[in-house]
């Protein structure tokens, strides 16, 4: 378990370093994820312990958001009258974005599948 965790944390350290040096507002773990995928695309192999730990973390991905999400109610209260607007705007924009994204993906997937056949 420790070995697998170490592998993931090493990629995170690499990602944090890239993020810091590039001076972009993209967090280190996102760069770390990309670096790991690039590394595998170049033929790198992940050891079994890393895969096991990754599965364990992914199965509980939602848990990692709970510490911050528990503060939402405090935050909304500080927004005062604007809070209700924020809530409904978030919901409407979320529905619109979900539909636009899925429709584009499905349309392009069908179009490219036809080209191949």
């Amino acid at each position, binding site marked *: 378990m420790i070995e697998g965790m170490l592998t993931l944390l090493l990629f995170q350290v690499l990602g944090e370093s890239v993020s810091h040096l590039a001076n972009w507002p993209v967090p280190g773990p996102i760069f770390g994820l990309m670096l790991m995928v690039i590394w595998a695309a170049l033929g790198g192999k992940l050891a079994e312990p890393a895969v096991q730990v990754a599965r364990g973390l992914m199965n509980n991905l939602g848990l990692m958001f709970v510490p911050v*999400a528990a503060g939402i109610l405090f935050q909304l209260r500080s927004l005062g009258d604007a809070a209700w607007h924020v809530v409904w705007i978030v919901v409407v924009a979320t529905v619109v974005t979900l539909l636009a994204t899925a429709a584009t993906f499905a349309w392009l997937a069908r179009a490219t599948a036809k080209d191949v056949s």
Partner: protein
Amino acid sequence: MTTPPISELWVFLKAKPLLWLVLTLGAWVLARRLQDAAGGAAWANPVAGSSLFLGLILWLTNTSYQEFFAGAQFVHFLLGPATIALGVTIIEHGPAVRKRLLPVAGALVVGVTVSVLSTWALCRAVGLTSTITLSLLPKSATAPVAMAVSESIGGVASISMCAVLLTGIAGAIIVTPLFNLFGFKDWSARGFAAGLTAHGIGTARAYQVSNEAGVYAALALAFAALLQGIVLPLVL
């Protein structure tokens, strides 16, 4: 030697990070079980359930968020490695993903554009202040990206954080019934939309529903974070 009264035990525990760590994990396990009992229903989202429960406890016990976070930070730290962990499934599904690069790229650009523009238009329509509007624009990006982008374009990080979490929870709850209603059957399209719109919380939901959806959600989460992190500060 006299033993301290039992009422003092609460005062003792409340000041310990251990109590808040145990309550965070406990609330999560409980919320997961409740969702299982509800047959995995989307409305019984465990992120929403456990954070509401914890928010209620903090309010009832008059506990400050800082006191709570002293314990919850150990879970919060795992967000980093958990994000890296998403790369593992992308790697496992690499060959399938490579065949669908065009849908991935097209949906990425369209999705991020629609997310930012629809939010901007709605905020303008109801006349929200420009500080709140700018804070809401990156709300589909993963939390650290959204907060960093928000500050660089003139928003407030804590408002962005709130909007990001609301978006994630709303997306995770809405996604399944919405796509069933509109008859989307392509799991990769559904997953990609969930990850792009509702970042990590949407990705967590996608993995619950289908492994294929989860892979594309993780991909969308990473690419959308890169795109918004690079483009939004340049455009605004």
